[in-house]
């Protein structure tokens, strides 16, 4: 069938299973938007307030479902506004396809109006990108983009299409959804080697990351933990892979991780890493990391083996397949001593928490706030966050009942990610969605409140308002002699009025009782709700392993160094 390049783009997206796209029109994508208009019964477009919001929405859409998120922007500033969103997806290995328009080929390279070399700009922050200068290559480039985005270790792919290619006419025949490029299966010898290491281990610790979460391997991971009497910890990206109520799950480890998780890893004699890259935030000082233990790492990306820490055995293959074969072959064994030891660390953690609660007095601590969220949130609730103290509190205290429920920027740490991502996650799943944010982060992209209102996207936005940039302030408190350089916001924004001005519902909570009341009400409202929640400005995220430190340097109490 003959059609224009713009129609080929939309038809290829539909062919690849895309039902929702996020974007913003402009001069060099008018043709694509015209094709969207004509196909609006087959594909839904959500107009965001800013292209960055569209990129984060596509990312949130993908994180909540595993599907490839899609965003569209015009040339020049439209394209550069996607950059932070693309980089966020890259650092967390999120499959995404970004389509940008560009000036016609005849104007390329002449600094034409709204011309930017976006393939050049995004080279280091995409898995791959395409500049499609021939309409003949257009459909296949988009198909390849989908395939690359979701195969192996996923990531974002950008396809830049000059205007004349969108206008040109060419044949289009719909094809099936491109399959993922299969990963190799591990050879039997390496599986046996892993099995031998696990059989020898007296204190095994299963360490799971975004890869395990993305593959929804929670059930299998618990099976292994039961079979060999291991405990489980995770990286930030591994949250929600294993349900929080599972007894041997110790939570996130690392800089702001759970004490029990970090200390159990220190005392383990074998770490079984599943889809995890041993990032600096999780390992602390790599010279002191895992001194007493051997490490097995299962990952689809061979460049991750020995990159951040040296491992004893790296298996680069289909992670689920390798894991299942290992699970099948390992001997069942009981390790009551190890389980007892792990429980003692959990008890110590509880002791630390109780002590902190006592010090807190009658003010609402972040933990109390999350206790309320955990108590009242509906089944299958997705928790999205921005970046800062509130994000770490969410990572520590939020409870997840199933996989893909935690949507947060881990690797890049993008303030302003949350609202766009929450819209994307909610649109993708129709599951209840709570955005926990801070007054700093929210200020960066709160314009997307307009999007949430326009499309009537129900969101409960818990705005932890402490009037400061809390995470940087915490570092200034601890390591910079309380010189609070530019972290005191002192803004006069009334977030309740602001929410109402956007057409959303605004509420205010200054204490625990008010918060509980507001949250209970907010989850019943069919539309976006902002709860302006007062948090003490000198609240800390604890425990904390100081930068470059290890579990031995853990800070568990305020004022302690």
């Amino acid at each position, binding site marked *: 069938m003959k059609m224009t390049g713009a129609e080929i783009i939309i038809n290829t997206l539909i062919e690849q299973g895309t039902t929702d796209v996020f974007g913003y029109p402009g001069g060099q994508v008018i043709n694509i938007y015209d094709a969207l208009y004509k196909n609006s019964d087959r594909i839904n477009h959500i107009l965001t307030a800013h292209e960055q919001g569209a990129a984060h929405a596509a990312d949130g859409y993908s994180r909540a479902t595993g599907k490839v998120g899609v965003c569209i922007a015009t040339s020049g500033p439209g394209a550069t506004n996607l950059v932070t969103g693309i980089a966020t997806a890259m650092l967390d290995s999120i499959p995404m396809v970004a389509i940008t328009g560009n000036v016609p080929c005849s104007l390329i390279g002449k600094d034409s109006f709204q011309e930017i070399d976006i393939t050049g700009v995004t*080279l280091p922050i995409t898995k791959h990108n395409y500049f499609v200068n021939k309409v003949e290559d257009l459909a296949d480039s988009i198909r390849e983009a989908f395939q690359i985005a979701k195969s192996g270790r996923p990531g974002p792919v950008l396809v830049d299409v000059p205007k004349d290619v969108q206008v040109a006419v060419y044949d289009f025949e719909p094809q099936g959804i491109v399959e993922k490029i299969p990963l190799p299966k591990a050879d039997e010898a390496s599986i046996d080697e892993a099995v031998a290491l696990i059989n020898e281990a007296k204190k095994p610790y299963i360490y799971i990351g975004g890869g395990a979460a993305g593959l929804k391997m929670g059930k299998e991971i618990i099976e292994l933990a039961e079979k060999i009497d291991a405990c489980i910890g995770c990286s930030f990206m591994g949250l929600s892979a294993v349900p929080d109520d599972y007894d041997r799950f110790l939570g996130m480890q690392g800089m702001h991780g759970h004490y029990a998780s970090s200390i159990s890893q220190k005392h383990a004699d074998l770490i079984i890493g599943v889809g995890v890259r041993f990032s600096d935030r999780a390992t602390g000082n790599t010279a002191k990391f895992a001194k007493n233990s051997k490490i097995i790492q299962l990952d689809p990306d061979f460049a991750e083996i*020995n990159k951040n820490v040296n491992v004893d*055995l790296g*298996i680069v293959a289909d992670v689920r397949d390798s894991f299942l074969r290992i699970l099948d072959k390992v001997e069942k064994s009981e390790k009551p001593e190890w389980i007892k030891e792990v429980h003692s660390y959990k008890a110590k953690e509880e002791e630390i928490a109780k002590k902190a609660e006592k010090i807190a007095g009658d003010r609402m601590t972040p933990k109390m706030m999350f206790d309320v969220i955990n108590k009242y949130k509906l089944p299958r609730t997705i928790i999205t966050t921005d970046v800062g103290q509130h994000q770490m509190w969410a990572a520590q205290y939020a409870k997840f009942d199933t996989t893909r429920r935690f949507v947060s920027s881990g690797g890049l740490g993008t303030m302003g990610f949350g609202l766009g991502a929450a819209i994307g996650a909610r649109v993708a799943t129709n599951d209840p969605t709570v955005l926990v944010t801070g007054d700093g982060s929210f200020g960066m992209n709160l314009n997307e409140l307009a999007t949430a209102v326009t499309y009537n996207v129900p969101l409960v936005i818990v705005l932890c308002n402490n009037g400061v940039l809390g995470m940087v302030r915490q570092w200034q408190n601890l390591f910079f002699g309380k010189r609070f350089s530019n972290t005191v916001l002192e803004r006069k924004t009334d977030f309740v009025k602001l929410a109402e001005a956007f057409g959303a519902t605004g509420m205010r909570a200054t204490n625990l009782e008010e918060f509980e009341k507001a949250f209970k009400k907010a989850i019943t409202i069919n539309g976006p709700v902002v709860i302006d929640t007062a948090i003490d400005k000198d609240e800390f995220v604890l425990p904390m392993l100081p930068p470059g430190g290890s579990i031995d340097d853990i800070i568990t109490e305020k004022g302690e160094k």
Partner: protein
Amino acid sequence: MGKTNKFVIAVYVDNKYGVLTRVTSMFTRRGFNIDALTVGETESPDYSRITICMSGDGYAKEQLINQLRKLINVKKVEEIEESSSIKRELALIKIKNNSATRTDVLSAVDVYRAKVIDFTATEMCIEITGDPTKINAFIEYMLPYGILEMCRTGIVALERGEGTLLSKETKTGVHKQN
């Protein structure tokens, strides 16, 4: 940090617009410092061959190879082992020409099997081809005679024997600590 060595990596990439940029952009992003890089045509019109010389320890080498293999347009990456390969480089060296030094220079050109390819009353241009160590030695010898200008191509390298890089089996899958 392990022991620092020089090593040579050969890379087959798609012969397409922008591929060299993808490779060099990755070097910048990952903080690799390259000693020399050459790129040119191969036996197949579909591929270009990039030869990279780098100094670093075993960790840097493994990372360079792995990160190169991840690029979509990269088809093959192998280390060219010192012991089983032929390496060549070409240099053009322009030096001062005067009656006092002419004889010395020309005898060095003869001994090093270099060639004089331009000759005027005041300068001469010398072409030398060979293993980089030979070229280094020649340049060092020429320094006192006044080098006006010089350029080097960087190394190209092939493995000995009838095997080819594209047919070589790539070892990935299991990595063990050294």
